[in-house]
């Protein structure tokens, strides 16, 4: 059952530049209201005001919710004009946000479960909040983060606060050289894998999980419009051949549901 959605003006309290491609925005509700209960893996729809070339909202996954400061963290990749505008927001700037959206990762875990959270590029974003939520549930999540090179490994220190972190870089500048699927982490037997990153990476990870018969959930990203399940633009074809909205039936899917 989807939780109640809100449209809030939020104020930028911090905007950290992460390399040339990414930004970490921290936002609090401008009216001081408490952030709604949000599940790991859910996303928000951000309005891009004052941009001549951006008309629609941009879906951004929830990176973390800091209950102490009532702030929402968004890890943003400068993919185009809209996200570029967003990462340029100065402290004190107001941004309209619709949240929480989507289904989120499933939390039906046993404390004894060994859980691997695999992220690639900006796809690591939702895994931070997921890691915290899994710790709260009594688990000890481990992370496997992949990137082109060391410079693209985002928020490493934040992940290390939550659990053991394995790394893979294509150029070997950090962690093991190669793709995440080749990482020695996979020598361990996991009970479940949560994955978010580029489509080829997610499919490769899903294949490994399938072969080893491990439960695997992936968080999909595609071109969204409303984020509410009304426009039917952001569809994904499921294994049963039916189109479903990534914004409402997803963004998280068990790979068994997908025709992968």
């Amino acid at each position, binding site marked *: 059952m989807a939780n*109640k959605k809100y449209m809030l003006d939020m104020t930028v309290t911090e905007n950290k530049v992460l390399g040339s491609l990414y930004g970490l925005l921290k936002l609090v509700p401008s009216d001081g209201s408490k952030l709604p209960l949000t599940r790991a893996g859910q996303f928000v729809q951000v309005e891009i005001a004052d941009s001549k070339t*951006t*008309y*629609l909202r941009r879906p951004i996954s929830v990176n973390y919710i800091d209950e102490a400061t009532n702030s929402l963290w968004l890890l943003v990749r400068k993919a185009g004009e809209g996200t570029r505008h967003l990462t340029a927001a100065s402290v004190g700037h107001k941004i309209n946000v619709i949240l929480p959206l989507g289904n989120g990762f499933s939390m039906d875990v046993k404390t004894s479960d060994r859980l691997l959270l695999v992220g690639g590029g900006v796809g690591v974003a939702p895994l931070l909040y997921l890691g915290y939520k899994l710790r709260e549930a009594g688990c000890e999540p481990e992370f496997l983060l992949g990137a082109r090179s060391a410079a693209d490994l985002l928020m490493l220190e934040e992940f290390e606060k939550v659990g053991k972190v394995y790394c893979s870089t294509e150029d070997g500048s950090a962690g093991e050289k190669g793709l995440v699927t080749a990482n020695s982490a996979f020598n361990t037997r996991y009970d479940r894998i949560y994955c978010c990153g580029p489509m080829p990476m997610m499919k490769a990870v899903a294949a490994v999980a399938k072969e080893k018969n491990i439960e695997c959930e992936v968080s999909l990203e595609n*071109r969204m*419009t*409303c984020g*509410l399940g009304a426009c039917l*633009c952001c569809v994904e074809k499921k294994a049963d051949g039916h189109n479903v909205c990534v914004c409402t039936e997803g963004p998280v899917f068990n790979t068994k549901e997908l025709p992968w």
Partner: protein
Amino acid sequence: MVNLSVELGDLKLKNPVLTASGTFGYGEEYADFVDLNRLGGFIVKGTTLEPREGNDYPRMAETPSGMLNAVGLQNKGVDYFIEHIYPRICQYKSEIIVNVSGKCVEDYVTVCEKLSDLDRINAVEINISCPNVKQGGMAYGTTCEGAAEVASAVRKAWGRHMIVKLSPNVTSIADIARAVEDAGADSVSLINTLLGMAVDVERRRPYLSTVTGGLSGAAVKPVAVRMVWQVAKAVSIPVIGLGGIMNGHDALEFIMAGARAIEVGTANFIDPSVTMKIIDEITEFCERQGVEDINELVGII
């Protein structure tokens, strides 16, 4: 106290603000942001005889002040609507209008016959202008004969209010409007989307799986207002205006150009509560300008 209620022939609306088919789901999707009972009405997703999966992804591309879509009438079919959706939404006190599409005339007729059993459905919007389906859709909407054929067939099967939704992708939309008026339409709504296309230059391919799609949003407003003005002068049945309405000011442009009611579409995607604001802004305008009845402004130009 300004009167916002309008009459589309026999169809009475508490205010002129409707939501456009395909942009508002079945209403429920917006319940967290909108008081559905405050709307003049909402027009639910395009409904067909059989379930439709719609087109392949990608279905959307952002364009300057607008967007292209190629959803292709994805819906679970009229029977599913009657059994599962209608029972949930018939509680709302706003008019519920069903947008009907078909790949042949018989489809339109059969869907409307099935809808006749639903006592809360006082009107259907006959979609002869969907640019995103191979059969039917816009094919009917681009000739007077095709448009009249669908309209008169539905007219025989459907006794309540029949809105015909017109395509802007024609040389003379006024001629099409006259044709459906003669065929028995109770009102016309316009414009459906303009056929458009966008290219992903880096990948050297179209953004949409269907190459072309329907353009909507603020960008199309000037074309829509013009067509509403032309059609309102050409027919005597009420005109419902839509196309890029983002706020109350835009809504008033359509009303002054001749629209008795308006539909809000793409704006719902950007601000899900926009319909409430539009009702408020129209009210404020009337109060400021001393207009006691919104009907005074209809077709003032």
